[in-house]
């Protein structure tokens, strides 16, 4: 598995894609000749007018102009496709796939024409009703949870369209539900209460708070179940929590520090931050906090150069005031990012938007986020707000032109010495002379999974990941962090942006109907820089 720091970086990347709605793909070039075709059916009859798209799984929201609409017989053909890894999926909000796997992964080579990528759809059923409060007034814009029971959870169409929510009359309508049994609920479970504008206690149809007493709703294809109404109790109001952020040395208030609240302890739970900052008097506040054990924390910030230990508190049955968060001067790291073996600093300038992050080894760091800062044109950076402990560095890029994403941090040096185990940091320390040595990831793996004893069922799914096999286990070398390799329905996979070295390919086979039987197959592979390594992985399904 990838390290947690990497995961955090991957999150940053993913979120940024969402934030800017990145477009990784421009109009298809005319000379691309690959294509995908198939048929969309309902009860073995073709369905016309369904849009089928080929999405790039690495481009966040997966906007794609590779799309086609089914003809009168339900046939579609997507053409002029560039080689690459795609997910083929019908975009048909009024329909749901008959089985659980909706999208199909495909590795497409130059000029490839993949046929019979077929989809079987059903209309599904409808559940509708009205949500009212204790005074009989409609509850407006309240999320309604329509949960399939006794089956594998699948994203419903309404969920894709922004979730099921009541309108201004308190009415909700969930459609394209795969036939089966459903539980309908409104409100939040007690252990998930972090507060909000209005918190209702989790209430199930027919207006019961005990899930064991909930009535399940049977949905049939094209059936409509109406009057699934729920009356809620009084909303919970929660309690107000206030306090102050002060400088531990001077006792003076610290303004403009962003803070958050964490429910649980440092090894588990959930955190949230409204993005609010302490005011001029250093004050912070949380409204409507439900009973529970919490901590206040401050978010690392490049402007304030301070950090603080978590301050725990418990909410029982009253407001809490007078909490004091004491800031200390945090450590700073001054350094530079350089390419391995390249003296010319302009190589770094060409990378554009490259960010350096430092992840502390404290458990809290997982919840409060890590410091990150953009490097200067000469590769230099200054990271502040770091927690004491062992810091591991990471890189993240906001450029998606296919070059900078394939970078790896090869080595962290301090004053010319390699620091394979990270750098130990104390509060207020000014650490200088750090060099982050990076290299481009130029190796790639192209593979084929062969099932030796039979065929995978229609619903079987395979996942793949690489494990670094190396003499120095802490070596950060590895796979490009943007890539989440996929195995397609023909058993093919491509992993790009791999550093030269020896890896273990891991392939797991899942079948939704038998989750307990996940099987993992391993194979060693040696990848060279600037080369494509071909590999065949043979698997046996029978023990």
């Amino acid at each position: 598995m990838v390290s947690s720091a990497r995961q955090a970086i991957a999150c940053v990347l993913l979120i940024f894609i969402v934030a800017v709605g990145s477009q990784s793909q421009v109009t298809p070039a005319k000379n691309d000749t690959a294509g995908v075709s198939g048929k969309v059916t309902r009860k073995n009859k073709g369905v016309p007018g369904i849009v089928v798209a080929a999405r790039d799984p690495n481009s966040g929201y997966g906007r794609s102009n590779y799309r086609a609409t089914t003809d009168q017989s339900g046939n579609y053909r997507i053409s002029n496709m560039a080689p690459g890894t795609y997910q083929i999926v019908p975009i048909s909000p009024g329909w749901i796939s008959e089985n659980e796997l909706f999208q199909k992964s495909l590795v497409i080579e130059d000029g490839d024409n993949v046929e019979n990528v077929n989809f079987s759809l059903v209309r599904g059923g409808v559940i509708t009703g009205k949500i009212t409060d204790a005074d009989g007034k409609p509850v407006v814009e309240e999320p309604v949870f329509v949960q399939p029971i006794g089956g594998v959870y699948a994203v419903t169409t309404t969920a894709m369209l922004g979730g099921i929510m009541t309108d201004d009359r308190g009415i909700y309508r969930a459609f394209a539900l795969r036939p089966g049994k459903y539980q309908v609920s409104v409100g939040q479970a007690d252990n998930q209460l972090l507060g909000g504008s209005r918190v209702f206690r989790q209430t199930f149809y027919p207006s019961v708070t005990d899930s064991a007493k909930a009535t399940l709703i049977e949905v049939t294809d094209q059936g409509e179940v109406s009057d699934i109404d729920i009356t809620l109790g009084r909303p919970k109001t929660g309690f107000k929590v206030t306090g102050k952020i002060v400088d531990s040395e001077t006792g003076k208030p610290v303004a403009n520090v962003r803070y958050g609240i964490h429910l649980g302890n440092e090894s588990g739970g959930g955190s949230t931050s409204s993005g609010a900052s302490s005011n001029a008097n250093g004050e912070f506040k949380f409204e409507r906090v439900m009973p529970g054990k919490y901590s206040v924390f401050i978010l690392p910030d490049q402007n304030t150069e301070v950090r603080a230990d978590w301050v725990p508190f418990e909410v029982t049955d009253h407001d809490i005031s007078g909490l004091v968060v004491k800031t200390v001067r945090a450590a700073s790291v001054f350094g530079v990012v350089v390419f391995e073996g390249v003296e010319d600093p302009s190589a770094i300038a060409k990378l554009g938007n490259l960010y350096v992050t430092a992840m502390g080894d404290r458990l809290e760091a997982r919840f409060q986020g890590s410091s990150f800062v953009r490097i200067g044109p000469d590769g230099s950076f200054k990271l502040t707000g770091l927690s004491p402990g062992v810091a591991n560095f990471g890189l993240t890029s906001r450029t998606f032109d296919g070059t900078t994403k394939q970078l790896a941090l090869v080595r962290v040096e301090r004053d010319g010495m390699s620091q394979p185990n990270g750098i130990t940091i104390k509060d207020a320390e000014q650490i200088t002379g750090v060099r982050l040595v990076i290299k481009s990831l130029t190796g790639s793996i192209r593979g084929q999974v062969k099932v030796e004893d039979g065929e995978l069922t229609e619903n079987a799914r395979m996942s793949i990941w690489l494990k670094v096999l190396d003499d120095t286990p802490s070596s950060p070398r590895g796979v490009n962090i943007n890539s989440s390799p996929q195995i397609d329905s023909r058993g093919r996979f491509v992993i790009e942006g791999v550093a030269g070295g020896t890896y273990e390919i891991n392939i797991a086979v899942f079948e939704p109907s038998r989750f307990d039987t996940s099987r993992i197959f391993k194979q060693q592979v040696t990848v060279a820089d600037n080369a494509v390594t071909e590999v065949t992985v043979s698997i046996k399904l029978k023990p």
Partner: protein
Amino acid sequence: MMKALSFNILAILLLTSSHAFAQVVSTSQTTNQTTRTKTGSITGTVVIENGQPLRNALIYVRTFSSARPAQSAMTDSEGKFELNGLEPSTYQIFARHSVYTLLPRDEGTANNYHIGDSVKLVMVKGGVITGTVTMQTGEPVIGVRVRAAAVSTNENVQERFTDDRGVYRLYGLPSGKYVVWAGGGGGAYSGGAYDNDVPTYAPASPRDTAAEIDVRAGDETTNVDIRYRGEPGRIVSGTVNSSISGISGVLVTLTPADGGSQVVGVPPGERQGFVLYGVDDGEYTLTARSLQQSGELAISPPKRISVRGADVTGVELSLKPLGSVSGQVVLEELKTKECGMREPLMLTETLVSAWHKQDEAAKAQPKFVWGLGAPANADAQGNLILQNLAPGNYYFVTRFVAQSWYLQSISIPSASAQEPKKTVDATRVWTTVKIGDRISGLKITLAEGAASLSGQIELAEGEALAEKLFIYLVPAEKESADEVLRFYAAPVDSEGKITLKNLAPGRYWLLGRPAIEGGLTKLRLPDETDSRAKLRREAEAGKTEIELKPCQNVTDYRLKLSGQ
């Protein structure tokens, strides 16, 4: 659950990071003032039309120069809210509720508040537009995005998806005229089935023949059905170039000549591509904008494109920095003690805005560009900077809170190369801002000793108050004939009461007459010398003169209209 929550924090960090840049600029200003000034609150209540309190309305305030709310609160069961810990500044107040909408402001009342204010906000149940989207065959169009835009502002106000019956429902709409459309407008976030189509406006057409739907607050407009055209839209694509370093994300906006807009995000880099899908035939303006690390914006000069039955590709947009004007608010205190108790003027509550000249050149820019140059408050030392000004001609408007002060003069260094050290009267000459200009030396002088005038219109027998009656003050001294800042105007209320405040001492002619077109705003434009001269002739003929001494508060003034 756990992971999702910790992701949220990162999301917030990233989403607010653009504002964080802006924040850096203001931090140095605020730290200075926090050492001298105390924070305060703005409180209030929100009620619905029948006077009943409205709970769960989100109230927030924002200074003009920040995109981030300074403070927010939800109303309680009594409709009350309290926004605490606010630093002295000028705030705009906003209220949001999913079903209710704020009553539009009375004409002439500005959305600005200061700490200590108590505010009563009235919200009314918004209007509803509902209907069904169907294919040509009569089949429902399921999961298509339906959007509404206000005709008056061209701004998109709401969007919802159709359900399995093709039914959509848009609610909480302020009163006004709307156009409603389904599909099209693919760009950021969208990967939907209908985003690549041309938009279909209700009832079944492109924008130019769309039905305008009249929505009244509280009313439900039903059967606003859309017969979906289902034709593929065109693609508009190109690149954004920038020689500016430290760009943090680019947005490209496609603004149709006849309303609505389509926005797409572009990943940052030196040269990056953008694609907009589902574009209908028509005339458009393309504009790219981006935040720089300094907190200032860069935009591309507007590019006109024409979509005619084919994709438009290879459009090149080049980011250029916007201009800024910086300067100082200077206080001129009275030396004498004739005014008695001194009323301090809070510099940080002084708000200055740059208004652009609404000429032909201004129309070349999409409307939103003019909104980028937000007003700015002075800091505790009186320094201020007006950023993000698009190329154009500007004049300056100053607002402040303190009865005994008046706006005396606004000057700016001459732009003429021959006279670099000379200053000019910025109230009588437009200030020209070009791409990337950094103009400094704006000087706004506020003087102590303002006079005020209040009283009553005295009607002759059988005389009735005219509609939209205004009272005008025009400088009577010959040498002050075109002193722009000495022209004042105020509406006469329904009972004939008049109130004029913050007046410069001096001799004036008073004139009561129906509001002149364009109001005081027009009267104070640099190039309206003729309008001012005309009003002055009219006032002079009326022969009603008054002399206002420093700090003089004239009350119970009786103005006869019949003689005029």
